[in-house]
């Protein structure tokens, strides 16, 4: 026979890990202080109860409430991750071990169970994992941004090197054309062919710059509301709105800003088209423009260092739809080139990519908020230059 009193004393004093002794019928017959502390039960709550009371029925572990009775009598269990359940229902991750001891006869069986509380370790692991995932994601974005940056740098470098000689060639042809005015057809034809080729080379460089977002903007002081109107007309000309309601709230006398009208119109068309396409049958699109002074700084997209400072005056255009919204797994990829959920015959997935590039070139910002099933709001922020502010 075990000297229960003595063992209990030393278990309480010397064993700092939660420990219990279970009999052959899987009833708890002894618990130490560390265990009581961990699970929040009193000694009398536990002694005499089935061992399973202490286990959580957790899917995360092989050893759980539903099978612990069967498993722990069968042999030694060493460092199995399991979950204890506290009196108030919390699950505590533990490293569980048990070993079976036999007395004189077979009915005289004792199982000693220890468990080490590993919640701290788990927490740290979890934190590490999220930190790792964040770093990974930030790094992916950086790599992508770097790649595009590199293409942009290369493209604008090449552009300079190619456009200068092209300029000389074109001026040269102009001079020869003036010196040999269309007397002989073969000569004038030769000049036109040369001129055409030089201009073609230039347009190829422009396409490259365009894709690498390094292409020129043709900026003028513009009224953003006019550009919005133009975009709306274009969209309306291209699709039928049977049950889609478009409402606008454009601020009157909005400051004029330096923008590339055509390109900004392209952005608005892309965004309005997306809104229309997000609404299968019916819905509402709400377009709003206004200016405001930022009360807090705004960070540029994907870690770019240009951002809006607090106190800076901006012009905001919002396009809100009551469409299907954007699920989180799609949200991350919205701006990736060629990412689309519209299938083969739907979109090519460059609408947002190009739009962001254009807004980027204007040193602006594009923000998207979306609730699945409810709708999406896309906001565009553009700087109001200092001179306009004074007006």
């Amino acid at each position: 026979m075990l000297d229960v009193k003595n063992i209990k004393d030393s278990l309480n004093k010397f064993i700092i890990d939660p420990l219990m002794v279970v009999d052959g019928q899987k009833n708890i017959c002894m618990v130490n202080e560390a265990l009581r502390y961990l699970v929040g039960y009193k000694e009398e709550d536990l002694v005499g109860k089935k061992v399973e009371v202490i286990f959580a029925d957790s899917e995360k572990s092989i050893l759980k409430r539903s099978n612990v009775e069967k498993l722990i009598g069968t042999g030694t269990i060493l460092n199995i991750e399991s979950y204890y359940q506290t009196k108030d229902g919390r699950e505590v991750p533990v490293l569980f071990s048990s070993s079976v001891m036999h007395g004189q006869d077979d009915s005289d069986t004792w199982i000693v169970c220890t468990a080490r509380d590993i919640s701290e370790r788990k927490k740290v692991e979890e934190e590490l994992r999220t930190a790792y995932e964040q770093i990974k994601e930030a790094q992916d974005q950086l790599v992508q941004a770097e790649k595009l940056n590199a293409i942009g740098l290369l493209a604008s470098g090449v552009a300079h090197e190619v456009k200068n000689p092209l300029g000389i060639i074109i001026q040269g042809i102009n001079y020869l054309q003036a010196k040999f005015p269309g007397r002989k057809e073969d000569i004038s034809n030769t000049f036109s062919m040369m001129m055409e080729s030089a201009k073609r080379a230039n347009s190829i460089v422009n396409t490259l710059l365009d894709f690498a977002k390094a292409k020129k903007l043709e900026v003028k002081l513009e009224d953003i509301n006019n550009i919005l109107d133009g975009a709306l007309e274009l969209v309306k000309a291209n699709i039928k709105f049977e049950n889609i309601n478009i409402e606008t709230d454009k601020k009157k006398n909005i400051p004029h800003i330096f923008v590339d009208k055509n390109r900004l119109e392209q952005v608005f068309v892309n965004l309005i088209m997306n809104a229309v396409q997000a609404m299968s049958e019916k819905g509402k699109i709400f377009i709003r423009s206004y200016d405001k002074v930022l009360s807090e700084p705004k960070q540029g997209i994907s870690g770019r260092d240009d951002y809006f400072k607090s106190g800076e005056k901006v012009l905001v255009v919002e396009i809100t739809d009551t469409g299907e919204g954007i699920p989180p797994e799609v949200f991350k990829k919205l701006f990736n080139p060629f990412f689309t959920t519209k299938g083969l015959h739907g979109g090519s997935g460059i609408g947002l990519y190009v739009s962001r590039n254009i807004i980027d070139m204007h040193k602006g910002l594009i923000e998207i908020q979306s609730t699945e099933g409810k709708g999406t709001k896309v906001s565009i922020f553009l700087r109001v230059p200092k001179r306009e502010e004074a007006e």
Partner: protein
Amino acid sequence: MNRKKVLIIDDEESFCKLVKMNLELDESFKVETATDGKKGLELAKRFKPDVIILDIMMPKMSGFEVLEKIKKDPQTITIPVVMLSAKEDMDFQVKAAQLYDELYLIKPIDAPTLKAKIEEVLARRGIK
């Protein structure tokens, strides 16, 4: 008729030469050229052009710096400047438009267009 005086500052010598040849084709322009900013500034004071065509991407002194110097010197401050660049820079474009109200043109540019733009600037300043 007075010939309109044009100063071209561009580090590409062939470009300078050809633009000069093209503009002088019909006797209405008198063109001087400089292949760097320093020479350009000297010429601006001596030659007193009606308009300056200024390249932005130049070694040593950039067109940007040259423009600042032109606009700080009382002898040259009133001369309109047409910026010419193969590199498009939104910031600069906006700045040029805001500060100096001059043209910003993108290379390559053909002779008739350049001539038309120069005449436009001159007309705006009342130079016929």
